[in-house]
């Protein structure tokens, strides 16, 4: 317990968290500080490319684990299951409409890649190894939750369906394609490829992550300001509880698959995190009646900072207890 708290305290004082806090504070204080959209997108391309490539290179180095296929299936299963739990919880904790609740639930079934990236940064800095193919699992978990959300909404008779075009958009979403593509490049070029571009994708990685989190803090802070008064206490409680429920759902799965402590922590992090890229865009197309302020604020304004500050260290600690050597 003490160890957990000390890890958490240490984590709270890392440049990564503090950069996010700076952005959040600046936005809440209505500072003019802002990151241009093009720069934020460039940072996110860098992070996706780097994390995907490193995952692939690590798979190339350690050989392909037979568990990859199982892990993918498990991830997809979680991505379907979590929204159902989230939806039920939301409907009991809040008076959100079915459509809003379905949309929010979809976000929690999917994943936030920057939460994942932050978790890998913490693992790396604490020298905990993890399975390189976890990035592939991350990519696989982006989309299924969207299907679950639409199904939850449709049960209420709203008649929404995934048309072919939406399927294509979701599955070929830029971030999925880049993550998987970079993973494959890393897997094909292996150690040699990594050596060639290491000083671009490895050494400056954490610094870039700081700037990206500064931007995330700004966006989250602006969102919180806009939606002040819109969120019920129940919704906020949900956004703080749900990550831990997701992580708890992922823990037995990861243990059953025999993941390392690092891999278990990452699986828990994926389950605990909520999407802020792929799912919002899909919801705007397929469930336009759902209020974006609600799902974006819960995902980016509450759950993301929760995971970043308290969640990840907790998952790492718990994973260490159960799966640790």
């Amino acid at each position, binding site marked *: 317990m003490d160890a957990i708290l000390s890890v958490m305290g240490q984590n709270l004082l890392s440049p990564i968290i503090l950069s996010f806090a700076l952005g959040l504070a600046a936005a809440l204080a209505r500072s003019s500080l*802002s*990151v*241009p*959209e093009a*720069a*934020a*997108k460039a940072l*996110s391309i860098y992070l996706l490319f780097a994390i995907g490539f490193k995952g692939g290179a690590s798979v190339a180095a350690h050989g392909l684990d037979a568990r990859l296929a199982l892990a993918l299936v498990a991830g997809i299963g979680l991505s379907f299951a979590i929204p159902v739990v989230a939806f039920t919880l939301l409907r009991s904790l809040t008076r959100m409409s079915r459509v809003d609740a379905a949309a929010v639930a979809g976000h929690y079934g999917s994943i936030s890649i920057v939460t994942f990236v932050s978790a890998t940064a913490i693992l790396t800095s604490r020298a905990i190894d993890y399975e390189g193919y976890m990035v592939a699992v991350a990519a696989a978990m982006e989309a299924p939750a969207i299907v679950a959300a639409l199904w939850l909404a449709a049960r209420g008779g709203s008649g929404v369906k995934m048309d072919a*075009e939406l399927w294509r*958009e979701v599955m070929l979403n830029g971030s999925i394609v880049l993550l998987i593509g970079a993973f494959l490049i890393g897997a094909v070029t292996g150690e040699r490829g990594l050596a060639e571009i290491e000083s671009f994708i490895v050494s400056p990685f954490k610094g870039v992550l700081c700037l990206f989190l500064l*931007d995330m803090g*700004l*966006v989250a802070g*602006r969102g919180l300001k*806009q*939606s002040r008064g819109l969120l019920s206490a129940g919704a906020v409680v949900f956004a703080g509880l749900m990550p831990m429920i997701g992580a708890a759902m992922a823990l037995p799965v990861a243990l059953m698959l025999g993941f390392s402590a690092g891999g278990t922590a990452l699986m828990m992090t994926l389950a605990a995190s909520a999407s*802020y*890229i792929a799912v*919002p*865009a*899909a*919801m*705007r*197309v397929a469930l*336009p*009646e759902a*209020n*974006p*302020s609600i799902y*974006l604020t819960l995902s980016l304004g509450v759950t993301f900072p929760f995971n970043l500050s308290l969640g990840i260290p907790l998952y790492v600690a718990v994973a260490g207890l159960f799966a640790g050597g």
Partner: protein
Amino acid sequence: MQTHQAKRVEIIIEAPLEHRLTDAIVAAGVTGFTILPVLGGSGRSGQWSRDGQVSLAGGMVAVVCIVRPERVDTLLDAAFKVVERHIGVVSVSDCEVLRAERF
């Protein structure tokens, strides 16, 4: 300078729907349009800004489409089917164009 009557249709629409809208208006036989970026805005669903956004979901774009007057209804019908359930603004104004053979 010789000019010709035309209509300028301006559609402000959520970025994730951009391609659906342009596909629909192309399908309606309108082949000319221009897409302008939008930095931010405000409406019944609140204020928003594109600053620092990574996701498409938060943004809008403006699609400007100049058409012959007789085709404006086809265009509006096609556009309306896409924007119907969504937030966004459709406005039409009169204008004159040079080189009418292009429209």
